[in-house]
């Protein structure tokens, strides 16, 4: 059986959290394929990457860092070339990416270079008789498509927050090699970072989202306080209504024309639950809705609901959560 390659991401020289999920997913698939398939993890960077030595514990048998001065920031063309070359040289049967902003850009390039189809943003993967079967949401999450991939390598990207990292007592071998290459014609000249400590809604384990029920942009401080009570684990999201009104940045929008999120806990506050909003959050593990209208459609997908005025309910919730975190 040929091996599985997990393509990982680093930013500022540190492994991104989503990469542990990619290794976990790759391991799961390698085990399902059987025949002793191994998992190699690949990182592109300028030098040693912080966190690479932890990858063995998530299922990587071998961690390979390809170094080049041009690989500090994401370089679409340079990365695609180096990875496609690596896949060819290693004869991998499966290549797994994260369906992150970078992964969704990079995976199609590598796939096209290799002349292989790509199953993007999957939420489940299995193997049957040596063939890979992947599941992905389509029609804004209103349906699930299951596909079998013929031939190899099989190219997949994994939806963030779905493949929960699993630890195992094992270390992976570390290798580092400098490679020839350049960034290519497309150059990331700058990253305008969000304020330090802000989690992205697509990657936060907890998302607290607000809608038109907040009534005024200044009132989002009520949600920011709730998010803060979760001690660095929560991000604040928004419905399109409030993004279009200019109350919140587009980066925070959850839904069909915003981000797809699958946090452990999604709290919808003053959000009615329009189908396009549900498209972005219905795969959350647990959904809580706070809305003053008991007939709001959000209650149909929520696991737990409180009918009431958010301005009374949310501050109380914030207090209770703070108590939990001492």
């Amino acid at each position, binding site marked *: 059986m040929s091996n599985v390659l997990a393509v990982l991401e680093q930013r500022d020289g540190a492994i991104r959290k989503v990469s542990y999920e990619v290794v976990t997913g790759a391991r799961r698939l390698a085990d399902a394929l059987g025949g002793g398939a191994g998992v190699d993890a690949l990182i592109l960077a300028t030098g040693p990457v912080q966190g690479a030595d932890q990858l063995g514990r998530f299922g990587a048998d071998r961690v390979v860092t390809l170094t080049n001065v041009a690989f500090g920031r994401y370089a679409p063309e340079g990365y695609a070339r180096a990875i496609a070359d690596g896949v060819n040289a290693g004869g991998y049967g499966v290549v797994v990416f994260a369906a992150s902003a970078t992964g969704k850009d990079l995976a199609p390039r590598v796939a*096209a270079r290799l002349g292989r189809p790509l199953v993007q943003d999957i939420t489940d993967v299995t193997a049957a008789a040596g063939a890979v079967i992947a599941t992905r949401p*389509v029609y804004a999450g*209103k349906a699930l498509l299951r596909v079998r*991939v013929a031939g190899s390598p099989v190219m997949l990207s994994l939806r963030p927050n779905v493949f929960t990292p699993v630890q195992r007592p094992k270390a992976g071998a570390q290798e580092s090699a400098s490679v020839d290459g350049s960034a290519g014609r497309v150059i990331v000249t700058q990253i305008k970072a969000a304020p330090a400590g802000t989690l992205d809604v697509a990657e936060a384990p907890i998302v607290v989202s607000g809608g038109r029920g907040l009534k005024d942009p200044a009132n989002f401080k009520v949600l920011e306080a709730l998010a803060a009570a979760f001690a660095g684990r929560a991000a604040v999201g928004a419905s399109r209504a409030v993004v279009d009104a200019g109350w919140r940045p587009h980066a925070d929008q959850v839904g069909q024309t915003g981000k797809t999120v699958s946090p452990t806990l999604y709290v919808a506050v003053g959000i009615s639950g329009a189908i396009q909003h549900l498209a972005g959050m219905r795969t959350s593990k647990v959904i809580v809705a706070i809305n003053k209208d008991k007939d709001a459609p959000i209650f149909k997908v929520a696991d737990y609901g409180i009918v009431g005025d958010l301005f009374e309910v949310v501050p109380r919730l914030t207090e209770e959560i703070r108590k939990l975190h001492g």
Partner: protein
Amino acid sequence: MKIAVCIKRVPDSETRVKIASDGKSLDEAGVKFILNPYDEFAVEEGLRLKEKAGTGEVVVIALGPAAAQETIRTALAMGADRGVLLQTQGLHPDGLETAKALAAELKGAGFDVILLGKMAIDDYNHQVGPMVAELLDLPCVTTVTHLEIVGGKGTAEREIEGGVEVVAFPLPAVLTTDKGLNEPRYPALKGIMAAKKKPLEVKPTAPGPGALEILSLTLPPERQAGKIVGEGPAAVAELVRLLREEAKVL
């Protein structure tokens, strides 16, 4: 400036999904089709680039069934100059085959900018733009929310987790558009009338079979009908207890 915009006919985002009797596709009976919302941003950006350049052409290209002529007319009504329909029998899931068919049409046609939506809201494939770019060996920036083009060089911004990437690239290039890039215009009555007379070429196309086999299309498991914990702030304590003890997420 010569601009191509690749567009797709997709079911309206309000569509109630019903699975066809084959268990592998959407039952299209009664479904309303629209121009893919992300492609609207691409059409709008193409029109703006041409307007700014003061000269040029905006060509819309759709791969799809005969009915996609209507989708092309929508883009022509917004202001595009002419349309090309790569007419197929039904679409299949392999985005690489779609990209190959589009690349074959785009190749050697001398476009300065090729625009596509970042993804289609039916198959959520999110890949055709960068694949077209690779096949044509052109620079590409995806999910663009801000764009400036000056004298053969471009700067784009794209959202990444926790920030915004600023990207420089040379023309010709392939760009995929995201919400936030612009506000697409509504076709005016005059535009709708004019669109009827604009050239629309139909080319029969047969994309390859691809390497993805659809096993099933199913409705997602219904989320368990949840419970209303209670009313007002008095219900908060019970909610927190349930989140800890039942859902185990706190």
